[in-house]
């Protein structure tokens, strides 16, 4: 299992990095933690002519609460940075928990939030909870930057809206009334296993009234998907166990899972039903326990 040859670049600014990427077009790849890219190159899935490392580009590694913007997460932040962030613990513990459910400790030290998003495999653990929290991503290109809603950024299996000469700079969880959120992952082992099913939920409760709710399903469609009918069942209603159960059933119908080596379609649907209920209960309980 040999790593094929490539041209290696270590630019010091985003501008310089975008320029190099622009010269190669789709034949170059950004290198962050390499935990998705290098296994793919070793297994001949990808053979980029050039790797453009972000190592020497300063910044992009903080998690900060910025008034008026929300929680701003640098693209180079590792899953373990998310696990250990006090800003996330205070505001969105669910994101720390989702990061902790990823991979193993070594990979959580090496990987990055941007790599997890741009890699765009259906079972990735960070996108569902970030989409449930209405996160946006900022992309820097040769002629400035643009911000996209994460829900629209991931367009298919290993496909995103990023251009070959763009670099993700940050992920922002905007200020919001949501305080209750949760991510439940089912993998075949506790560690080092991809999600068979992942369900994220974020709610805005007013007493027992569900003012708003977002449910996002991972690993059961080509992209993380909103369970919009399940959301409708709950939105504007007083929450009951029956309504939560109904939402779970709806999510199981809405999702589009495949059968593969890790689980059958039927099994995934049933796990979506169960995990949608659990994620909702946890998100609602957290919210109510705070007020």
């Amino acid at each position, binding site marked *: *299992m040999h790593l094929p040859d490539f041209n290696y670049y270590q630019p010091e600014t985003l501008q310089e990095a975008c320029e190099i990427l622009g010269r190669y077009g789709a034949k170059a790849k950004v290198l962050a*933690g390499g935990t998705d890219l290098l*296994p793919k190159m070793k297994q001949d899935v990808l053979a980029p002519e050039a790797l453009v490392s972000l190592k020497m580009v300063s910044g992009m590694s903080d998690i900060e609460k910025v008034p008026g913007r929300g929680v701003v997460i640098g693209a180079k932040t590792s899953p373990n940075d998310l696990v250990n962030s006090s800003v996330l613990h205070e505001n969105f513990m669910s994101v720390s928990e989702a990061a902790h459910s990823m991979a193993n*400790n070594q990979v959580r*030290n*090496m990987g990055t939030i941007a790599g997890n998003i741009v890699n765009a495999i259906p079972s990735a653990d960070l996108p569902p909870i970030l989409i449930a929290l209405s996160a946006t991503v900022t992309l820097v290109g040769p002629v400035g930057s643009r911000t996209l809603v994460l829900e629209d950024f991931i367009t298919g299996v290993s496909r995103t809206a990023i251009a070959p000469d763009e670099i993700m700079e940050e992920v922002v969880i905007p200020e919001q009334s949501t305080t209750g959120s949760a991510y439940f992952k089912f993998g075949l082992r506790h560690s*080092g296993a991809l999600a068979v099913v992942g369900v994220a939920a974020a709610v805005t409760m007013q007493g027992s009234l569900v003012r708003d709710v977002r449910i996002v399903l991972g690993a059961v469609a080509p992209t993380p998907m909103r369970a919009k009918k399940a959301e409708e069942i709950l939105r504007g209603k007083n929450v009951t166990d029956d309504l939560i159960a109904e939402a779970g059933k709806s999510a199981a119908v809405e999702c589009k899972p495949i059968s593969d080596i890790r689980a059958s379609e039927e099994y995934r649907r049933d796990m979506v039903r169960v995990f949608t209920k659990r994620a909702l209960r946890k998100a609602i309980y957290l919210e109510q326990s705070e007020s």
Partner: protein
Amino acid sequence: MQGVKDKNGVMRYVISLIVNGDYLTVTVKGNTLLVDLLRQQLNLTGTKRGCKLGNCGSCTVLLDGKAVSSCLVLAVEADGREITTIEGVAQSEKLDKLQESFIDNAAIQCGYCTSGMILSAKALLTKNPHPTETEVRTAIAGNLCRCTGYVNIVKAILAAAEA
């Protein structure tokens, strides 16, 4: 970091790094992996190659104090950074308390996972000197022992934390 073309036209990069306390300057190719720099160029064969895909943890080393899988790190990316391998855990002749504890608790069977296990445990104890059993198990979850000697490995790490 400086790059030069060798006589066959292949780019070689001159990198400087600290390995087990020694300042080293070495020349590597762009696609040289940290595990191969350590094992083949620096003869530090205590770091093992296993799955080569980041699943097994046998190539675990500490990069600026954090456990990483050296099969997924380019050597060029380690430029300017500090690496600890299993060879750097003992203080000259004196074994680290983790190493002593692995011996005392019979936590070594075939030994292939041991280097990685000890480095993952070392990173944990440096950050968290008194971990719970769950914290120990989480820290070594990326280190597979196919002799399945986990019970004694966990015992050894907890005992080293007590000591």
